[in-house]
C-alpha cells in the first residue's frame, strides 16, 4: 500500500512539496551567509585571543597597550556592509513570502476545511461531502500539472498550528480567524507532523498524518468515504449499545441518530490506520482500551471514560471496527 515515512520523517531539509522546497532553497542561502559570517568573526576572535593575550615575559609587560578610542572609517565599513547583506536577504525573503502566500490558485484545486480541536483534527471536504478526522487524504500533485490542496483553517477552541515539515511551513489555527495554506506533495506516501502551538494538556499527542494518494488511490478513497456507514447485522448489538449511550452526544455516524459534533466523525473509523489523533495503531485491542478510558493513551483527552462493562466494550469495539 503506502510507503512508510522512513527515517527522520519530519526533517525540514527533506522537502517533498513546493512550499517546503522554496523554504529549503531559501534556507540554504541564509545558512551560507550566516555560516560565512560565523567563520569570519570566530576566526578573528580566535586570532585576537591568541595574538593579543597578556604575555608576562614580554619586555613591555608593565605598560598599558596603546589606547585606541575608535575609527570612523572602520566603524562605517562594518555598518555599511551588514546593511548591504540585510538588503539582499530581505529581497530574497520577500520573494518567497509572496510566491507562497500569493500563489495563483488553479481552478481544479481541492479544498479541505481543517478545524482544530483539543486534541484532534477535523477534516471536511465540502465539495466531496466527506467529513473525517486525524488522517488527511490528498491527491499528489504532478509538477507539470499542479494540483495543490488548499486548506481553510480555523479552530473550535484554542490556538493550534498545522505543521507537516516535509510539505510546508506551519500555519496557526485560531478561533474566530480563518487562515489558508496549500500543500502539494509530489510523491505518494505518508507525511507526518503535529500540532505546533501549545493547546493544552495533550498538545504532545495531537499528531498529523497526511496521506498523499495517487489519483487512483484518491478516487478510491473518496468513493469509500462517500458510502453510507456499514450496517453489518453481525455487530447489531454493538451498534445498539453505541446508539444508547452518551457516545452519540459527541460523535457522528452518518445515517444514524449519532449526530454529535464535539468528537471525530466515526462513519468510517474502521478505515483509519490510527486512533487517538495518530498516537496509537487502530486495532481492536487498542480501540477497546481507548473506549474504556481514553486516558490509557491520552491523559487529558476530553473524552470521558465510558464505564461500559466488559461485554458492552467488546460489542462497541466490534461495531466501530466494522465501520470500514
Amino acid at each position, binding site marked *: 500500500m503506502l510507503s512508510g515515512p522512513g527515517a527522520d520523517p519530519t526533517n525540514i531539509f527533506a522537502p517533498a512539496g513546493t512550499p517546503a522546497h522554496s523554504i529549503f532553497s531559501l534556507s540554504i542561502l541564509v545558512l551560507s551567509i550566516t555560516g560565512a559570517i560565523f567563520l569570519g568573526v570566530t576566526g578573528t576572535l580566535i586570532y585576537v585571543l591568541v595574538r593579543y593575550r597578556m604575555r608576562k615575559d614580554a619586555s613591555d609587560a608593565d605598560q598599558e597597550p596603546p589606547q585606541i578610542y575608535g575609527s570612523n572609517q572602520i566603524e562605517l565599513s562594518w555598518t555599511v556592509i551588514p546593511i548591504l547583506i540585510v538588503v539582499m536577504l530581505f529581497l530574497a525573503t520577500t520573494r518567497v513570502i*509572496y510566491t507562497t502566500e500569493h500563489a495563483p490558485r488553479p481552478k481544479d484545486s481541492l479544498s479541505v476545511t481543517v478545524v482544530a480541536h483539543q486534541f484532534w483534527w477535523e477534516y471536511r471536504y465540502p465539495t466531496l461531502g466527506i467529513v473525517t478526522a486525524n488522517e488527511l487524504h490528498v491527491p499528489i500533485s504532478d509538477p507539470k500539472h499542479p494540483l495543490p490542496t488548499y486548506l481553510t483553517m480555523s479552530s473550535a477552541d484554542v490556538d493550534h498550528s498545522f505543521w507537516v515539515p516535509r510539505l510546508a511551513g506551519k500555519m496557526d489555527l485560531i478561533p474566530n480567524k480563518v487562515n489558508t495554506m496549500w500543500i502539494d506533495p509530489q510523491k505518494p506516501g505518508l507525511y507526518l507532523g503535529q500540532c505546533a502551538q501549545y493547546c493544552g494538556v495533550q498538545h504532545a499527542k495531537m499528531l498529523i498524518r497526511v496521506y498523499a494518494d495517487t489519483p487512483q488511490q484518491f478516487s478510491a478513497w473518496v468513493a469509500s468515504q462517500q458510502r453510507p456507514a456499514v450496517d453489518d447485522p453481525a455487530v447489531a448489538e454493538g451498534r445498539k449499545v453505541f446508539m444508547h449511550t452518551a457516545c452519540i452526544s459527541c460523535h457522528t455516524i452518518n445515517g444514524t441518530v449519532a449526530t454529535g459534533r464535539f468528537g471525530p466523525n466515526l462513519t468510517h473509523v474502521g478505515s483509519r490506520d490510527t486512533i487517538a489523533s495518530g498516537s496509537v495503531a487502530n486495532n481492536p485491542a487498542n480501540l477497546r482500551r481507548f473506549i474504556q478510558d481514553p486516558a490509557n493513551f491520552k491523559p487529558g483527552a476530553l473524552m470521558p471514560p465510558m464505564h461500559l462493562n466488559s461485554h458492552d466494550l467488546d460489542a462497541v469495539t466490534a461495531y466501530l471496527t466494522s465501520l470500514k
Partner: protein
Amino acid sequence: MATQIPFNQANAPEETGADMRPRLWLEVLHEWVTTVDHKKIGMMYIGYALFFLVVAGFEALLMRIQLAVPNNSFVSPEVFNGLFTMHGTTMVFFVGMPILFGFGNYLIPLMIGARDMAFPRLNAFSFWISAFGGILLYYSYIGGSGLYGAGSAPDVGWFAYAPLTAKVFSLGHSTDYWTLSLLLTGIGTIGTALNIVATIISMRCPGMKMSRLPLLPWLYLVTSGLTFVAVGPLTAAQIMLMLDRYLGSHFFDTQAGGSAVLWMHFFWIFGHPEVYILVLPAFAFANEIIPVFSRKAIFGYPAMVAASVGIGFVSLSVWAHHMFTVGLGAAENTFFVLATMAISVPTGIKIFNWLATLWGGKIQFTSSMMFAIAFLFQFLVAGLTGIMLSVAPFDWQLGNSYFVVAHFHYVLVGAILFMLFSAFYYWYPKMTGRMLSEKLGKWHFWLFLIGFHLTFDFMHVPGLLGMPRRIYTYEADRGWMIWNMIVSSGAVVQAVATLLFVYNMIWSYFKGPVAGPDPWDAWTLEWATSSPPPSYNFAETPEVSSRRPLWDLKHPDDPDGDYEIGPSHRQRAKQKEESA
C-alpha cells in the same frame, strides 16, 4: 596604585568602629528589611534572583529527565505543562529582571559618583513588591486549585496565549496567580526603571556629562526607557484578562467574538522589547569588563551608545516576528522581516567594536574575562540563528520548534547568563571585599561551557527534524531521541557547574583573598571607594573630566579626556590652552 582610594579616604573598619559588638540576627534582618541603601537593595535583588535561578533550573532538569527518552512517564502531562510555564515565567520575571536590576541598583550610583539612587524609598518599595510577585506565583503550587481538585501551577505557557487562559479552558485559580504576580512585578519593574532614569539624569557627579557617562549606565538608561514602553501593554493585557475571567468582558474571549490575536499583539509588544531589556544589561557588563581585561579603552564609544539607543528604538517595531505563522498577511510579514533584520546592524556594530577593543590589547584570561569571551562567541551564534528566524518563510518551519528554544536559550543562557557570571567574578570583590576563587572559577567556567554546548548546540537539531516545543513526550519513530539524550546530559553538567559557583560564592565570602578597593586596576568610579563601599559610597563627591576617571588618576601625563570625543575636541582643547 592599587591601594589608592581616591574619593574615600575613610576606610571600612574605622567607619564601622562604633558598631563592633556582635549583633543579633534579628537586628541584621531588621536592617536588611528596612534598608533603603541602593547597595543592600541591589544585593537583595541578586540574592532573590539567584534563589529563583536554582528553583527554575531545577524545573528545567525535571523537564530534561522527562524528555531524555521518548514516551517517558517520569512526570504527567499536567505537571510537565506546569513546569515549562513556571520555568519560563520564573526565568524571565524573577531571575532575569531582578538580577539585572540588582546589578544596576548596586553599580549605577557608584559609577556616576552618587551616594544613592534618586528615590531610595521607591527603590525599596519596588524590590519588595517584585519579591512579593514571585512568592505569589509560587504560592499557586499550594493555592492554585480553587474548587477544582488538587493544587496546581499555571500551565498556560509563559506567553499564555488566549483563549487558553479563558475561564472555560483554564479552570481554578492557577492562571489568576500568574496574572496577579506579573501585575505586581510589573509595578516594581516600572518603579525601578523610573528610579534608574531619574538617577542617571540628575545624580551624576560634577564633570560627568552624558558624553562621559560610562557605558553601563548608558545601557541601563536605554533598558529602563524600554521598560516604560514595554511593561505598560503587558500590565494592560493582564488587567483585560482579569476582566475577561471575572467581570464578563470579552477582549480575548473568542467564543463571544473576542480576539486571540489581540493578546498576541499585546504580549509581544511587551515580549520582544523584554528580550532587549534583558540583554542590554549584559551588553552593559561586557562594555565595562572587556576593556578592563584587554587593558584598552572601549573602541568607538559614540557608536556603542548610538547602537544601543538604535537597538532600543528598533526593538519596539519587531514584535510580530513572533507571529509569522499567525496568518497576518504577506505585507505585514514583510514589514516585520525588514524591521527584525535591521536590528542585526547595530548588534553587529557592538560585536565588531568589542572585537576591536580586544585587538591590540593585552588580554588577561581571568574567570570574568573567560565568561565574557564565551559571551561574545555565543552571542554571535545567537545573533546568526536570529537572522535565520527573521527570514519569515524559514520561521514557518523553525517557529515554535526546538530550534527556537535553542536560539533563545543561546541568548538567555549563552549570552546573558554567561555575562552575568562574568559580572559576578568582576564585581563580587566590590560587593563583599573578597575575591572569588579563580581556581574554582576556572572549573565553573569550563564545566558550564561544556554543559551549555552539549545542551544548546544539540537542541537545534530536533527542531530541524520537526520537534515542536512544549510537548511532554514524543514518538519514538521521529529520530529525535539521540539528540534529546545529549541535551539532557548537558543539563546535568550545567547543574553541577552552577552548584560549584554557589559553593564558590559561599566559600569565598569567608575564605577568599581580600580584594582591596581596586583589584582589577580598573577605570570607573566604583573602584575609587573601598570594597565593600561604605553606606555613603564616597566621603567626598568625585569630580571627573573624562570617561575613565581612574585612568586619568593613574596616568596624569596622558589623560583620557584629550582623546575621547575625537580629534576635533583635541584641537579645541589645544586652542583653548594656547589662547590662555
